[in-house]
């Protein structure tokens, strides 16, 4: 008879983005018997896009790890059980998942993928798997009925996966990850073993957070779904920023390099404030209706230098000061590009902004990240002719384009958003 004052909660595979329906625990940081506290990072989960540190949202003691490292399981699968010291849940009430995953349409509509059975596969696929040294029985298929497809096998055969710990150790010990293993997952232990061997001749290669092919596929799936499912419409405007930029330059001259504020932070905060004002663009399209979000969690598209992108989130961005938004932006961009994002960094975006300001293009026509209903695209701030009363002047201008889901949003609401954005940008600095 268990202690009535204790209850068990289940730690489940979280949904780390709308496009994720399965993930792999590549490293457990805890063992049964370990005490955990809310916010502790307990595991590294690999998605198609990247490896993410996953935090626990309760205090307790790990009782069991139900999924071993290296096994791909559907979102929602119980990964571990945790005994909490709190009052037991009333009998019959299911234990609450520790991580409240963002329910995604993809995950909800799809039954959990059954482990593939080798007998189900055609001789052609079995032969392909053999040739590429892929254990077909361990693959979780993406085809009909969870069947393994040619793509699944080829994907499994490509580039080795590297855990963040392995990456850190490789950098510290000068281990060239390319020379470790042709397939499978490179773990920290393998790196340590390699570090003890005589050093290889070439200098250590530096790995990136993205594992090119799988990230490309994840982006491809999400963008195809968005393009096929969502009736996009776009509204656009030009916003004059000369006054704001001059104020910002004066402000930055007085600040240390650590305190400086980039125009990007000003624009992101204004974008969040406008989304709070015009809340018809802030939320999700789910089950054939618009679900407004209670807060503005701003997804910011961060491009990776070797291709691909991630969209980490600044929570309650409309409520934060410019300095706070800037600090979070710095932190998120750095961690995105060095492979240190946490699961909580990419959850629950309600509205997204993409800025192509660095690429010197004037405007971008973005694609919505489902299940969100709108995305703001900002081009590079540039000098262009600008009508002032009845004469022409040259001013710093940004082109802002809002793409919205016409199932949820109408043109009038889209226009109101851009008007609010302009107002917040013009009032951004006192």
């Amino acid at each position, binding site marked *: 008879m268990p202690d009535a004052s204790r209850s068990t909660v289940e730690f489940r595979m979280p949904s780390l983005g709308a496009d994720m329906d399965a993930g792999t625990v590549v490293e457990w940081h805890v063992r049964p018997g370990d005490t955990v506290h809310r916010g502790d990072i307990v595991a590294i989960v690999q998605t198609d896009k990247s490896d993410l540190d996953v935090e626990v949202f309760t205090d307790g003691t790990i009782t069991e790890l139900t999924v071993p490292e290296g096994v791909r399981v559907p979102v929602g699968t119980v990964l571990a059980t945790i005994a909490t010291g709190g009052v037991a849940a009333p009998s019959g009430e299911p234990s609450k998942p520790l991580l409240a995953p963002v329910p995604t349409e993809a995950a909800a509509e799809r039954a959990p993928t059954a482990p593939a059975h080798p007998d189900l596969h055609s001789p052609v696929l079995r032969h392909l798997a053999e040739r590429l040294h892929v254990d077909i029985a361990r693959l979780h298929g993406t085809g009909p009925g969870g069947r393994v497809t040619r793509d699944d096998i080829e994907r499994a055969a490509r580039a080795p996966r590297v855990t963040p710990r392995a990456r850190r150790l490789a950098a510290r010990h000068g281990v060239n990850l390319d020379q470790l293993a042709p397939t499978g997952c490179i773990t920290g232990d393998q790196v340590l073993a390699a570090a003890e061997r005589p050093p290889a001749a070439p200098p250590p290669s530096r790995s990136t957070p993205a594992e090119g092919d799988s990230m490309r596929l994840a982006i491809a799936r999400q963008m195809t779904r968005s393009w096929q499912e969502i009736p996009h419409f776009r509204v656009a405007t030009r916003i004059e920023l000369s006054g704001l930029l001059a104020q910002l330059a004066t402000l930055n001259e007085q600040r240390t390099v650590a305190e400086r504020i980039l125009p990007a932070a000003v624009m992101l905060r204004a974008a969040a404030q406008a989304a709070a004002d015009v809340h018809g663009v802030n939320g999700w399209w789910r089950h054939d209706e618009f679900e407004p979000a209670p807060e503005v969690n701003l997804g910011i598209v961060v491009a990776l230098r070797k291709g691909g992108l991630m969209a980490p989130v600044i929570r309650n961005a409309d409520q934060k000061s410019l300095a706070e938004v800037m600090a979070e932006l710095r932190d998120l961009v*750095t961690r995105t590009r060095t*492979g240190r994002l946490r699961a909580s960094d990419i959850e629950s975006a309600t509205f997204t902004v993409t800025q192509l300001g660095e690429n010197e293009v004037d405007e971008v026509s973005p694609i919505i990240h489902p299940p969100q209903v709108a995305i703001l695209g900002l081009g590079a701030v540039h000098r262009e002719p600008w009508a002032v009363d009845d004469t022409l002047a040259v001013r710093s201008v940004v082109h802002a384009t809002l793409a919205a889901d016409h199932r949820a949003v109408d043109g009038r609401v889209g226009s109101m958003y851009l008007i609010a954005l302009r107002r917040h940008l013009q009032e951004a600095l006192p």
Partner: protein
Amino acid sequence: MTDAPSVRQLVADAVSRIAPDVDPGDLDADLHDDLGLDSMDLLNLATAISIASGVEIPERDLPGLRTLRQLQEYLARRLERGPDHDKEVAP
């Protein structure tokens, strides 16, 4: 602190923290145009170097610091002149 190896090391350490995919030995590549660092990366790099060296890098100096070699030379020059030029006013 002002000897070349420590300045080199300091810049290389900052690069490996901010942009681990950039080769810290590639001294003459343009950080923005050739290596793809954006304004956020460049600011983070300048901040990391500033904190590690104690040298404040004013906003007006940033446009002239486009390669790792320029960063090294700038830092060596600033350290030569001694600490605390932070509040120096431009002519």
